[in-house]
């Protein structure tokens, strides 16, 4: 198993006007980056300061932005969520309701970090077990015995599904289009909203956070449009509530406490 590098990836400053993608290849997403950061705190995950961790993460994102580097949306969504978490931790009860959920959000992040770390450890232990074909060997010269009474032919469900998928894809006319990631699809926006407001029953001023952490102006427009449309759709489905205090004021959203059963 390759350990993630502990050193920071410090990319060289790009030339004037040049946009560069940060190679975050050594991190398996924002949660992994957070876990790596938390290791730098050198404390047990249970004693971790979530506030400090959130600050470190946001600082990292800031550094990247100062270097005019673009980050994948996943990292920015996490940044937005952490910024919100930070605000709840620093000013308890500042939002439009009275739930003490800053701590709850922190506990939840801690749980996810612990669970990810536990799975990392489990994976490492698994891969170090004596494995068939390496430390443990099977019969080298199996003799064909007709053991099973099942018929002549053998195929697995996986074979079947793969055959079907390949077959159907072959029939699809191929028009290759390079993926230009300048548009947030409604599905992407929906994923991002649901991840951001998560299990919180608090009102979240979503766009405020998205605006702050989405760097490119052209992406800001599509992000606003898509998240708005997706939030209307989610509200229509009864999964979230929306509210706006004044015209053109920030749009708050929160999870519906008991979602309507899906029709």
């Amino acid at each position, binding site marked *: 198993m390759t350990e993630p590098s502990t050193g920071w990836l410090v990319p060289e400053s790009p030339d004037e006007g040049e946009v560069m993608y940060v190679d975050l290849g050594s991190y398996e997403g924002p949660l992994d980056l957070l876990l790596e950061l938390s290791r730098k705190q050198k404390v047990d995950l249970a004693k971790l300061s979530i506030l400090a961790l959130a600050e470190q993460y946001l600082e990292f994102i800031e550094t990247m932005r100062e270097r005019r580097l673009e980050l994948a949306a996943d990292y920015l969504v996490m940044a937005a969520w952490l910024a919100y978490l930070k605000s709840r931790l620093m000013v308890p009860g500042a939002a439009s309701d009275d739930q003490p959920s800053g701590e709850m959000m922190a506990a939840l992040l801690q749980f996810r970090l612990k669970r990810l770390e536990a799975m990392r450890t489990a994976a490492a232990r698994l891969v170090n077990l004596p494995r068939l074909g390496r430390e443990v*060997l*099977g*019969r*080298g*010269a199996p*003799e*064909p*015995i*007709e053991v*099973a009474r*099942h*018929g*002549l*032919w*053998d*195929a*697995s*469900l996986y*074979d*079947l*599904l*793969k*055959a*079907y*998928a*390949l*077959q*159907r*894809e*072959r*029939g*699809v*006319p191929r028009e290759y*289009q390079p993926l230009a990631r300048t548009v947030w699809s409604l599905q992407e926006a929906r994923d991002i909203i649901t991840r951001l407001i998560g299990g919180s029953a608090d009102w979240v001023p979503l766009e405020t956070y998205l605006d702050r952490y989405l760097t490119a102006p052209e992406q800001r427009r599509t992000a606003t449009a898509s998240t708005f449309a997706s939030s209307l759709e989610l509200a229509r489905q009864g999964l979230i509530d929306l509210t706006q205090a004044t015209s053109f004021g920030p749009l708050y959203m929160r999870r519906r406490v008991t979602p309507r059963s899906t029709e």
Partner: protein
Amino acid sequence: MSAFETEPDSLDAGELAERRLRILEALLFAAATPLSVAEMAPYLGEDAPVDLLLAELRHRYRSRGVNLVRRGDRWAFRTAEDLGFLLRRDETETRPLSRAALETLAIIAYHQPVTRAEIEDVRGVATGKGTLDLLMDAGWVRMRGRRRTPGRPVTYGTTVGFLDHFGLEALSDLPGIEELRGAGLLSSRLPPGFQMPLPLDSVLAEEEDPLDAGDMGERLGDAEPG
């Protein structure tokens, strides 16, 4: 890791012999072809009396279901000859389905009730009669009925045996388009109009008639109660 990582020096003669016999057992079991003394010796430590050890091992397995046999100057474990009646080395070995057969089966599973012309339409090639026969012989495909269209073509569907073999509770357990995509089996760059049918269970579809007596022929066994 084990007691055997200690040097053999610390073992008495009996223990050392047992350790070497264990190693021989493992080597011979895992070998794809019979092994020569020269191939085994390096695993046993210096001065191991390989011939004596092999003779001992052969003796121990003499009456077992597996025997140590000599092939020229090489050695191998083989199932006991008197149990040969168990080893039916005939054509009943299972063979993997051909790609054409797999594809046809998959199309029947997802698109049922489906006619032969429709299968060919999806596959883009003619389906040999042999492929459908093979799938019916395997007990995975059956004739379901006849489509109420000119020519009344026979419709095909899957059997309970199909569900059983592929570990499905019902046809509705077949993964849908999103699941196939999620598993990496379908690419995410499919055109928006791309659709996958929901397989209809064994009840006759609206536009389908039951098979009549003349259709059944020797296929009666395949047509489970709808």
